[in-house]
C-alpha cells in the first residue's frame, strides 16, 4: 500500500459498529455507503453504495447477506435483487450496478477510500 494514498483513507466507524454476517450504513463524503462484515472471507469487509437504484431508496445495508454460487451478495430488502459485494453488479439485471469502494480494517477502525470510488465493471 502506497503511503501517499493512505492520507486519503477516511475513518468511517469502528469495528464494534459492524455486525458479523450483516451490513450497517455510514455517512461519507460520497454519500450513504453500506459496509458488510464477513469475517470468514479473505476481504473480511466490503463497501458498496447504500442506495438501491431499483427500489429508489437507501436500504442496501439492511438486506440479508449470503452467497450465490460462492459470490458474496446482499439481497435488497425492497425487491430482493442480489448485488455482488465484490463488484456492485446486480445479478438479476446486467444493466444495473452500484458503486463499490475500497475499504479496510486498521487497528479496530474501519477506513474507506472516499475518492477511490470506482464504478463496478461486469468483469470484476
Amino acid at each position, binding site marked *: 500500500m502506497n503511503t501517499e494514498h493512505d492520507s486519503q483513507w477516511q475513518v468511517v466507524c469502528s469495528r464494534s459498529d459492524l455486525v458479523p454476517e450483516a451490513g450497517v450504513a455510514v455517512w461519507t463524503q460520497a454519500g*450513504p455507503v453500506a459496509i458488510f462484515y464477513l469475517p470468514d472471507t479473505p476481504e473480511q469487509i466490503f463497501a458498496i453504495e447504500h*442506495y438501491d437504484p431499483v427500489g*429508489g431508496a*437507501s436500504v442496501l445495508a439492511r438486506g*440479508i447477506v449470503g*452467497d450465490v*454460487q460462492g459470490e458474496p451478495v446482499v439481497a435488497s430488502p425492497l425487491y430482493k435483487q442480489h448485488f455482488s459485494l465484490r463488484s456492485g453488479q446486480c445479478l438479476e439485471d446486467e444493466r444495473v450496478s452500484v458503486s463499490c469502494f475500497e475499504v479496510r480494517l486498521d487497528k479496530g477502525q474501519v477506513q474507506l477510500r472516499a475518492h477511490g470510488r470506482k464504478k463496478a465493471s461486469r468483469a470484476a
Partner: protein
Amino acid sequence: MKKQHLIVIGNGMVGHHFLEQFTGSDAAANYHITVFGEERLCAYDRVHLSEYFDGSSHEDLAMASTEWYGEQGIELMLDEAVTRIDRERQQVITSQGAYPYDALVLATGSYPFVPPIDGNDQPHCLVYRTLDDLDAIRKSAEGVKRGVVVGGGLLGLEAANALKSLGLEAHVVEFAPRLMPVQLDDEGGQLLREKIEELGVRVHTEKATSEIIPGEQHRLRMNFTDEDHLETDLIVFSAGIRPQDALARDAGLEVGDRGGVVVDNQCTTSDPRVFAIGECALWNNQIFGLVAPGYTMAKTLAAHLNGDGEAAFTGADMSTKLKLLGVDVGSIGDAHAQSAGARTLRYLDESAGTYQKLVISEDRKYALGAILVGDNAKYDTLLQYMLNGIELPENPQSLILPDSGDAPTLGADALPETATICSCHNVSKGDICCTIDSGATDLGTVKTETKAASGCGGCAGLLKNVVEFELESRGVEVNKDICEHFPYTRQELYHLVQVEKIRTFRELLDRHGTGRGCDICKPAVASILASFWNEHIHEPDHVPLQDTNDTFMANMQKNGTYSVVPRVPGGEITPEKLRVLGEVAEKYGLYTKITGGQRIDLFGATLNQLPLVWQELIEAGFETGHAYAKSLRTVKSCVGSTWCRYGVQDSVGMSIFLENRYKGLRAPHKLKMGVSGCTRECAEAQAKDIGVIATENGWNLYVCGNGGMRPRHADLFATDLDDQTLVKYIDRLLMFYVRTADRLQRTSVWLENLEGGLAYLQNVVINDSLGIGEELEAQMAHVVETYQCEWRTALSDQDKLKRFREFVNDEREDPVQTWTEERGQKRPADMTAEEKLIAVSG
C-alpha cells in the same frame, strides 16, 4: 350457405359442457345455436351446490357468464321453459313462440324424486336441486331450529350439510338400514354414520314416513310406519333423481320403462334429429347420475355432430370419491362383490375411524371394486388398478392396510398410457405425456392445456405425481430443495433442527449445508429456530438471519422508512390509548391508516425514530403487533354478546384471549384469526387461518381459510366446542402447521397439499392419531410462556438499540427521502425509474 338451427334444451352442467365442446369444433360454424334454460340463471356447478350456503354466489358456481354465450354467438334464452316439441314441423314451442330446429339436443337433466307421502306438498316440504330450491330452503330455515332430509344417499347427505351450514339441527331419515346404500356396505355405512353423528347430524335409518302432519313443538310432524315420529321445521326430499323426460315422452320419443330417453352409442334418440345427453338419457338401460359420464356423452355428441364417425359412448365408470360433511367416502366398481367368485379383503380401524374394503377376483389377480370411508388416500391407486386391469401385488391386502413401509403404492410409472387420470374431462396419462412432449414443463401448464383436475378436482394428487414423474423421466429436474445452500425442504430442515437440537444457523449450515446461506434459507431457518427455542430475534446469532422487517420490528415501505403497528387485541381500544396513538403520530409526522385487521398503522418512521416512537407507545401500555413477522397478526372480532342484540357468545373476550395466547408464535407464514359472536359472521372468520364462530352451545372452529390473493373459505373443523377444547385444538393444529408446512406456505395451501386433507388433519388433532397431541400442546405452552414483547426487550438493551441508526457514524436522516402531502397527511413522493437511478448521482 344458410346456417342450420341447433337447439339445446337445458342449461345445466352437461348441456353447457356440450356447448363448450361443440363450439370448439369446425362444424360449429354451420349452426345457429339456441339454448333454452328453465332456470333464471345460466349453467352452474351443481356438484358444489352446498357451497352456496357457505357464501359462494351464483357467480362463484357459474360454469360461464352470459357474456361467454354472447361471444360464441349462442342465443341463450333463460327463464323460458319449453312446453312442447313438435317433431312433425321440427319446432320447439315455448310460452314465447315456436323455434325451428334441424338438430335438437335434450339436456334436461333430472328432477328430485319426492316419495308419495301424504302431506308432502305442504309449505316447508322442499327439494334440493337448483339455486332457487336453495333460496327456498334458506327462507324456510330463517328463525327455526331443525331440518330433516329424507334420503341418506349421496345427495341427501349433501343436503344435510347444507342444512347444517344454515345453523339448523340436521336430521337424515333413510329407508334402507344404512347410509349410502348404493355405494357402501353395512360396515362402511355404520362408520360413516358414526362420523357424521359426531359432527352433530342425527341419523335415522330403516324409517319409512307414512304421513306429514302439523307438529306441536315444530312446524311439521313426520309419522313413521313403525309408530315412531319426528318433529321438524322443514323437510328436504332428496331420495334420488328421476330423468326429466316429459317433453320426450309427450313428443312420442322412445323412453324406458322407468324413465329416461333411450339413446344409442351416438346419443341419438329414436328420432335421428333428436339427441339426449346427461341424466335424462337412458343408455343400455342405465341412467348416469354423475357428472363425468354426462360430460363423456356431451363430448361424444359434439364429436358426432362434427362428423367424427368413430365417436361413441360406451358406458362409464361409476366410481365416486367425495367428502361428505368433511368425511372421505370412496366407492369403486363392484363395491358389493357381486361378480362371480369375487373375494373381499377388509380392514376396519375403529380408533382412527377408517374402513377400507377391497374386492378382488377369484384368482386374487385383479381388483374389482373397493369401499373407503374416513380416508380416501388409497382411492386413486385402487381406482387405477381396477380401471386398467393392472395385476395386483402378491399380497393385495397391503393395498388397504396402513402403510407398513413395504406397501406397493402404484407409482405413476406403472400406469398404462390409456389410464384415465381425470374422469371429469376424460384426460388420460397419454394426453398428459403429449402435453409435456409439446413443451409443458410444469403442473400449471398441463392443467391449463388438458383441463385435468379442473372438474371435481379429485385427481389433483394423482395428476401431480404423473406430471412430476413424467418430467423427471424426461430429465427435467423437479427440485424441491429450499435453495442452493441446503439440499432439503423446509420440513426436512425442521426435522434436522429438532432431532439434532440445533440452535444456530451456523451449526445447521456447517452440518448440512454449503456456502454462507441466502435471503431464502436464512429467514426460513430463523423461523424454525424460533418455533423451537423462541429466543429474542436480536440475539447476535439470529440478527443476520432476519428480513429487515424482523430486524427492525417494523414494516419497510417503498422509500425505506417503516410503518409501526401496535397490538390492539381483538380490535378493542380505550379512548386514552386511541389518543396516545394520535399524539405519537402527530409528534413524529406519521401517516395514519386503519388496517383491515382492526388496528392502526403509523407510516413513515425512520430507523432513528423507531425506538423513540416505541418508547412512548410502550409507556402508554402498548406492545408490539408483530405486523412485521411471520406470526400471528390479529384476531378480528365482532362486538358479540356484550353489545350486539344477536350475539350468542362473548366474541371480543375470546378474540382477546386468543390474540394474547398466540401472539409471538413464529410460523411458516403470517397467521390471521377471526371470532364471530353469531352465525351472521361479521368478523369474517371463515376467511382466516383460524376462524371461530359462536353457537348456542359453544364455538364452531373453522380452519385454513384465506383472504388475499387466493381466497379460500375455511373448512368446518369441529362444532360446539367448549373454551378449553377449542384452545386445545387450535394449539395442536397451529403447532402441527408450524412443524410440517413449507416455507411461506399459508395454512390454506398447506391443507390442500396435506395428504388425506381435512379428514387427516381432524384425525391428528381431534383423535390424536399420531400420538403427538400432548407434545404439540407442550410445545405451544413453551412458546406462550416464553413470550416477550420484542420492543420492550429491545428498548431495555443499549446494544440492541445501536442498530436503530440510519448511519452508525452520523445522526442525520437519509437525505434521499422526498415527501409530498396528500389529503392532509405526508407520504413518499412518487419517483420514476429514471429519477430513482439518478437520485444520488449528484
